[in-house]
């Protein structure tokens, strides 16, 4: 059984996956910084102000568990690789079309020198008015899969090494007061033959941790993933379903007593869903999963959408949730206790 934490949340808590579009002015400030026209301090102040703005935007939209929108992160693997000793950057590689990624290379023994996202969490905690906020961390398997390995004798060894580092970071977050950490592992199912050991390695990050841990896996083979729901030592799986038109819901029968972070809006489409569509999707998932074990979120990070569309999608999501909450209220169901 998942343990209860001493925190009450509205039924069907709404949250985000993590990233949010950077305000235009912030992108401008980053450009100025790169051109040497503003100093580090001014850039940091810009990041802080951007976090304040996007947290407010999430809370105004009715999000119960906001993130800091990952305002400070250019990219989810690069950000961590820059802050762990032993990585080196040779330059960008293309991922698709004309889109590039600064793929890091592991060239030395990896060393956890200092906390990576504690400052992010502390600032978010300070500016949010919600009892719980979400901190996201890129998982060890995805960091390894999206890096070149020049140093370790196998990928497996590298993933375990990274898992130890991420584990230390999560323990630091717990010490700092974080209540909910989400580990992002979009690459987890891409090499099915590695799944057995990958799951064990990813579990390393949860060792000794006593706060709520979720895992986000997107655009992946959920048939494969769902076989490991039980083995993966996370209480919540945040998955995309709008993107797949709410097909594959049957895999959630394998959830056991774990929770689903149910993706109800598509982050790759600019079409704004209707509240009724969202409500309909929630009704569907409620046929398979107990309502106390459902959190509601977008499919994935909202980063790639124009900001006004990202905002509209969150609002529609919350309005859809409110339709169902109203139905539940009449049955006397209004709150849940957060579990870790």
């Amino acid at each position, binding site marked *: 059984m998942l343990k209860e934490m001493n925190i009450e949340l509205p039924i069907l808590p709404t949250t985000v996956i993590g990233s949010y579009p950077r305000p235009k002015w912030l992108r401008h400030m980053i450009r100025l910084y790169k051109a040497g026209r503003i100093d580090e301090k001014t850039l940091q102040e810009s990041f802080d102000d951007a976090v304040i703005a996007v947290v407010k935007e999430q809370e105004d939209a009715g999000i119960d568990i906001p993130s800091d929108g990952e305002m400070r992160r250019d990219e989810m693997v690069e950000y961590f690789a820059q802050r762990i000793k032993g990585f080196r950057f*040779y*330059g960008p*590689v293309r991922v*698709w079309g*004309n889109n590039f990624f600064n*793929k890091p290379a592991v060239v030395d023994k990896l060393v956890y020198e200092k906390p990576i996202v504690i400052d992010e969490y502390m600032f978010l905690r300070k500016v949010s008015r919600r009892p719980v906020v979400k901190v996201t961390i890129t998982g060890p398997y995805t960091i390894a899969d*999206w890096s070149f390995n020049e140093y370790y004798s196998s990928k497996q060894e590298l993933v375990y090494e990274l898992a130890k580092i991420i584990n230390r970071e999560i323990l630091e977050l717990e010490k700092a007061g974080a209540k909910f950490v989400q580990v992002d592992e979009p*690459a987890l199912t891409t090499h099915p033959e590695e799944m057995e050991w990958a799951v064990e390695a990813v579990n390393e990050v949860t060792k000794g941790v006593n706060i709520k841990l979720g895992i986000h896996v997107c655009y992946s083979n959920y048939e494969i993933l769902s076989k490991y729901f039980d083995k993966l030592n996370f209480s919540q799986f945040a998955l995309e379903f709008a993107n797949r038109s709410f097909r594959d819901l049957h895999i959630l029968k394998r959830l056991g007593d774990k929770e689903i972070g149910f993706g109800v809006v598509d982050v790759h489409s600019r079409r704004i869903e209707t509240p009724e569509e969202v409500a309909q999707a929630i009704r569907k998932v409620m046929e398979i999963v107990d309502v106390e074990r459902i959190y509601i979120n977008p499919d994935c990070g909202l980063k790639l959408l124009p900001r006004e569309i990202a905002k509209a999608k969150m609002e529609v999501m919350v309005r859809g949730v409110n339709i169902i909450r109203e139905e539940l209220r009449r049955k006397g169901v209004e709150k849940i206790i957060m579990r870790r």
Partner: protein
Amino acid sequence: MKIMSILYGSMPRSRRLARALSRYYSQKISLEALDEIYRKELKRYIDFTLTYNFFRISDGMFRWDDLFNPLAEYMKIPVNGLKRFYDNNFFFRQPVFKEKIRYETPVISEILTKDLKLIGSLDRINRISISLPGPATLVANSLIEGSSYTSTNDLARDYIEKVVLKEAENAYKQGFRHIDLHEPELASENVKADDYIDLYKRVSEYFRGFIWIPIYFGYNSRNIKILAEELRDTNIILIIDLATKNIDIEKLRNDLSKTKAVGVGLINSRNTKMEKIAYIREYVATLEKTLSNIEDLYLTHNTNLEFLPEKVAYKKIRLLSKFT
């Protein structure tokens, strides 16, 4: 045994080209200006590589977003959303065959010929290859919808007839002596190479130069063996990936026992770690000893160099050049 080095496939785009492309997409520069940058990129790559004595190179595939685009557009075939390209963190747009291929002119060889002419490199055309997806890889990564094609075989055949033969014929006329049919699919366990042998032979009838089949992201012993046997008396040469998995040398001897020429991808294009010269020397010496039937051994990289950052790709090219 004669030992030569070769290059094939896509190269990383330089920052200059990437910037030009995004400026073109946001309508800040014209198509002519973009074409100019493409040609500069091509010239830089050709000038660099051909100062070394590579037996042959590719055009770097700078105009390609992935193995199927913009070819799909030239075939008047729409594309779907992004799909993962085998086990890479690289994505392509999937061709959707709702209608039959319409391929009026051999666009690929026409554009490359024009580019070479404009950069004053036509005299090198016989050392530069035309790159195309192989039939097995095209059908495996496409969708067939409606009644356009009755089967994957049907599509593969039509693709060869309408696209590959047309390109081959024009390419030869223009002076090209190398065509590459990329077949990563043949390294997977999902497909039997047997189904495609007739199609490769058909291309071979049309093109009297060299036809290369790079097979990468792994090694499928069964497919390599049957292709090496069936294609031994043709002008078709396999390029095999010896860097993704460790291949037992005895197995390799057995698989390649009937062929006279082969390309071996010893340099890993999916890892930045530099191979040691001594390691390659030793490997080559072993191959020389073991593959006694091989007359021409072509040393190369195991897949597209584009999976590496540009700086490292060029470093690996310089490494390979030591064996030309």
